[in-house]
């Protein structure tokens, strides 16, 4: 990926967020280009989830700017983020367990008939289409999602993110609940979406997946960025050193969290 547009799809600049005295996110800057997968890695509590929740509008931020397509974006809640084409697959999946697949896919953006009532049938028809792409054998459209298997629930969460023509996709541990075959399906999907020009933030604990899918890796530790590296230019051991020790390899662009 040497040849890319000069303006990043998303730029998060100097983002900070503190809970009480604890700096969950400490002046973090990270960017993402169209057609690129950037992995966010680090220990639990390194600030990855907080950072992406700021981008998806779920958390407020204390300071810093979010720039989308070169223009400062105002994101104060999840609705705002979706308006910028930012879709998120949360680690918890964030599904309402008591309602069915179509209702979850369209939650907050329901299709309506010309009388203003819910158009459940049209929503189910679209749900069948998008689910067919992810999980061709899926048939349980009438059941509440709590009755679905872990993999099926994960597909619902992913389907919701790609249903509305997202430009920026945030995936927080998208394969945590999946078996090997489903994991492969998700990896294929990520490559396909990337080819379509989406920018993807991928949070994962699985370095194998990260090296398989990501163009760049941004390592976080204690709320700050240790450094950002091109996947092609480093080894897994380099990245492990960054995660555990905060030690930047030569190829990395060091961040504030790097130990010197």
């Amino acid at each position: 990926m040497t040849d890319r547009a000069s303006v990043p799809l998303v730029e998060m600049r100097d983002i900070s967020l503190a809970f009480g005295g604890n700096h969950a996110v400490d002046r973090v800057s990270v960017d993402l280009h169209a057609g690129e997968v950037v992995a966010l890695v680090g220990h639990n509590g390194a600030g990855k989830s907080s950072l992406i929740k700021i981008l998806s509008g779920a958390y407020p931020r204390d300071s810093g700017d979010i720039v989308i397509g070169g223009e400062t974006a105002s994101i104060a809640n999840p609705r705002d983020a979706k308006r910028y084409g930012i879709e998120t697959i949360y680690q918890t999946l964030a599904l309402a367990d008591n309602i069915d697949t179509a209702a979850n896919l369209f939650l907050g953006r329901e299709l309506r008939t010309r009388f203003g009532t819910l158009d459940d049938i049209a929503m189910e028809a679209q749900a069948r289409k998008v689910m067919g792409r992810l999980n061709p054998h899926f048939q349980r459209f009438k059941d509440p999602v709590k009755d679905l298997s872990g993999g099926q629930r994960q597909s619902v969460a992913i389907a919701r993110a790609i249903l509305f023509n997202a430009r920026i996709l945030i995936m927080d541990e998208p394969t945590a609940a999946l078996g090997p075959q489903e994991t492969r399906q998700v990896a294929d999907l990520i490559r396909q979406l990337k080819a379509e020009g989406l920018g993807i933030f991928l949070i994962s604990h699985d370095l194998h997946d990260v090296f398989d899918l990501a163009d760049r890796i941004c390592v976080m530790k204690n709320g700050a960025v240790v450094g950002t590296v091109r996947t092609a230019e480093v080894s897994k051991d380099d990245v492990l050193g960054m995660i555990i020790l905060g030690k930047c390899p030569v190829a990395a662009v060091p961040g504030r969290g790097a130990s010197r």
Partner: protein
Amino acid sequence: MRLNVFARLFKSAELDTRMFGMGFALVLIWIAFHILSGGLFLTPRNLWNLSVQSAPVAIMATGMVLVIVTRNIDLSIGSMLGFIGMVMGVIQVDVLPQFLGFGHPAIWIVALAAGLALGLVLGALQGALIAYLGIPSFIVTLGGLLVWRGAAWWVTRGQTVAPLDGAFKLMGGGPEGSIGSAWSWTLGLFACAAVIALLAYGRARRRQFDFSLRPIGAEIFLGVAAAALILGAVAIANSYPWPMGSVRRYAQANHIALPDGGLFIAHGLAIPVLIAIAVGIIMTFLATRTRFGRYVYAIGGNPEAAALAGIDTRWVIVKVFMLMGLLTAVSAAISIARLDAATNSEGTLAELLVIAAAVIGGTSLAGGIGTVAGAMLGAVLMQSLQSGMVLLGVDTPLQNIVVGSVLVLAVWLDTLYRRRKT
């Protein structure tokens, strides 16, 4: 799990086995009371009274379902009913006649509108405290239970307000507050036509999108069953005649000579029952066909997910409590109209009956699950128990013991049912 014949029939008709079970329990209770009372329970008169008595509880239960579905509770509605009832009573008896003159046709409208507005405001106030200040609904409405009951007393310093405006009283039922035989049949036939049209529309829509269709036999069965229920209810309401006193007064007022055998004038469906049915239809529509309803259930299922989906969850909660207040005002109007008096103790313990009705009707206190129709059926079930025991001459303390035990038993059975299902 293997499906037996009945389960398969229900599944193909997309019928709710749970609702069917409740209907079955209701029929059992009715038959038991009928036998125990020596044939007094399943009479047009008793069933008609049962329908009128159930109306206020059923109306409030439809709102309580949404409150409980969002993982909240409203303990204040009994007191709120008393307070709103007193305000409506004073407006139509003491205030408006001074300006409009006694018996002015606008009195009932203004009084009712004021009551409904008050219900909305009280509900909005409680809802805002719960949603925006984060005070648990249990505490806010427990406070409301005391505050509104005190306020009800304060309106007249405890004095009962009576008699009420003549037109307002029609909301309480009685011979004049019923729509008579011809209108009942008309309405019944209209309802049958509406059911058939809805079934046909649903089938056409599903075909349009190539979804699986119910077997045509199941559709016909549903239509016939619904029509039979509707027309059966109308037939029963139409075979309950006016009492002799009302007939005599009616004959005198219209200068009709009373024949020897008396005059058979049917009650027909009571106005409060029609109000309850209309409320049930509107609330079912709100809960299942609108965004608001979808959000209510989503919040109940996973509040965090609802917020992450971009739903303004706090505003939805406020709206739910406003709706509860509005429905409480409707029930207040029916209650005082039926009594022909507003008293400050009206509605005492109604909150518990309403919550019991919702829970017996399948509403889960954990949130996210419950239907309007189930809650209304629950209200009829509670009321059947109560009036059946009155018919049998059971003492009040024993009535309470039975109702309380039935509530616990019903919820236990429901827990078993849900556990087996998953």
